[in-house]
């Protein structure tokens, strides 16, 4: 290769290309790999894509948790004011997962309308609530009185 006359210019060009490449790669990667957050009513209205990774957030409905006979799979309803979505989850639920409490499920929506979750997230402690559940009232999401 010819010895560059202005090494600095070459380096600047290379750096700019690298940064652009990073951004382009990132945008390409994000196009179909970002998981959108949906509420049960949005799912009911068909706003959530079937088969795509999404996050579903809402209240675990009272009395809806049902354990299957293998002992490690549960089925429950996640709901909000207007709709409910059935969720199937195989695994150990987080410590603060309980009926009447807020939860976020990560997974995919099957064509049948069943949400198959890979991961369940619940709030971390008394004072903490996932920001996605901020539109539910605090009392509702925590299942009890939250201070402040």
């Amino acid at each position: 290769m010819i010895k560059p006359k202005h090494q600095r210019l070459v380096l600047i060009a290379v750096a700019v290309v690298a940064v652009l490449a990073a951004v382009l790669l990132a945008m390409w990667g994000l196009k179909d790999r970002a998981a959108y957050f949906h509420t049960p009513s949005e799912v009911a209205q068909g706003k959530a894509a079937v088969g795509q990774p999404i996050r579903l957030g809402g209240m675990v409905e009272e009395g809806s948790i049902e354990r299957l006979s293998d002992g490690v799979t549960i089925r429950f309803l996640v709901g909000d004011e207007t709709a409910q979505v059935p969720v199937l989850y195989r695994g150990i639920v987080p410590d603060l997962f309980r009926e009447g409490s807020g939860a976020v499920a990560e997974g995919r929506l099957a064509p049948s309308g069943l949400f198959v979750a890979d991961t369940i997230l619940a709030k971390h402690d008394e004072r903490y609530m996932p920001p996605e559940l901020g539109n539910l009232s605090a009392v509702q999401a925590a299942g009890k009185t939250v201070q402040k």
Partner: protein
Amino acid sequence: MIAEAGLAALWLAAALALLQLFLAFGPAPVRAEGTAPVRAVAIAQGTLTLFAMAMLVALFLRTDLSVLLVAQNSHSAKPWLYKLAGAWGNHEGSMLLWVTVLGLSGAILAIFSRRLDTRTFRSAMGAQGALALGFFAFLLLASNPFARLNPPAAEGRGLNPLLQDPGLVFHPPTLYLGYVGLSVAFSLAVGALISGRVDSALAKAMRPWVLGAWVLLTIGIAAGSYWAYYELGWGGWWFWDPVENASLMPWLAATALLHSINVLAARDSLRAWTVMLAMVGFSMSMVGTFLVRSGILTSVHAFAVDPQRGTFILVLLSFYIGAAFALFAIRSGKLAEGPRFELVSREAALVGNNLLLTVILGIVFVGTLYPLFVEAVTGDKLSVGPPYFNTVAGPIALVLALLVAIGPLLSWRRDSGGKLKRLVIPALVGLTLVVVLLLAPPGGHLLSKLGLAIAAMLAIASFLPLAGRKFRRTPLSVWGMVVAHFGVAVALAGMAGSTLLSKEVLTAARPGDRVAIGPWLVEFHSIMPAAGPNWTALEAELRASRGGGVEILKPQVRFYTDPPTETSEAAIETVMSGQLYTVVGRATGDGRWQLRLWWKPLITLLWLGAALIALGGLLALVGRASRGWRKEHQR
């Protein structure tokens, strides 16, 4: 009294930061001649912040419930270790720790930096003062850790049990030392831009800070990863959680800086480049602090959701980053170009390292901030996780690992490629492994298979720079490089191997049942109540065997009362070839218990590799420091 003393010390330190700023940049009558006044001020400021931090720790150790922060985050019945670490297990305390490290960094720079020219040094101290001033303001105006509670609480609300772990004692301080240690590199870069003297003397002054901060970041990230691994009970060691990314981004920038600074020190090349990276490094620390401390993220680290604080940090970091980059834009054109180098040379390889690291940093940065950006613009909520980061950044990281094998074999300025012949054997080993892995077991990610092969190649190649050297005459910094690069290979083997070979069993079992996983046969022996200082638990006893003796594992479900919380404590059996990871879940109601078991072969290599990487950095730091010291004393 203790709280008031701490608060007074903070105000005083803030005033000194302002004075430091004026001594460096003020109009002529204020600006000090020489460096003695600014040094004295910086040392006093560092001492005062350390004093304030000590006062907060004292309040936590005494569980002084008339202090709001203690009442909200501590409890008299907590073990003393967690009372101590609880001082930084909350927003205000952790910001105080952050500012303490910032103040101490300035003080240490003031004490030890003797070889920099006056103008660069004074401007750097001014920049450090400016940084400190902003964060003092944040602490005093928006996050006062010493606020009183009147009347005092009867009892504290306790510390989140997830944080009640020895990890809390070490993880935040090491990470903060790393994060904020980069502030000195930032300030020195600003100082050098102002004085216009970007040369190898600057690089040599900056290098110990970059090396030290990088070692601590490495340890802090690895410790945080291991903590999440055993504490969350999810069996994973990296989730691409925004908070993890917040610590990874400064590390990536510091890794790039660490390499380019050697070019500046040894060859006086890559001047503007290195200065830029030094500014990016601490900028990433501030972005990380914003992500973690603003409460906009879902995380154990988001202690409190307070939008005002987020805005405050955002304004601060925009100001500092904006000012630094504006300065760069104005002044960098005036820097003379350093000596040239050829396309095949050590410098070019290091530029390649920097570019790849920058691309990875860009990918992580965009992926981490994208959800915030989209939500701000469209209101849609989304999350970006492993499928994005692994797929997009993973292949580039592997290319970088290949370059790690090649770069150290090239000589400065120009190289005929003669030493590259030595790579034949490692390359053959790598290729053979790729072929074997691709042909043999079905399934498994391509990326992991390639990773394993590249790790094997790099593990051999990392020692090649020692070939032909007399071991006892080899500088410690070269040993450091070899150890760190070997550590990269080992860690990569751990990541790829454990991902490829990991086995998982999720089942419900009765006491007496046996479960097979990988080479292990695990007997669920019993489940019994257990108790600790501030918790009770249900503790399962698992007896794991593989041929020989029996290992006993005791995973628990713990119940804390203050605040009332359940946590699951995984039990992990570490053997040479990997880790058996066990979690007990809930009772199913018919006498069975949920058990989740993982056999993670080679994961031990990940932890070993991280330790080697940090050790390599430490060796280089000691080597450079002792060499500098000897030079000083020969004169």
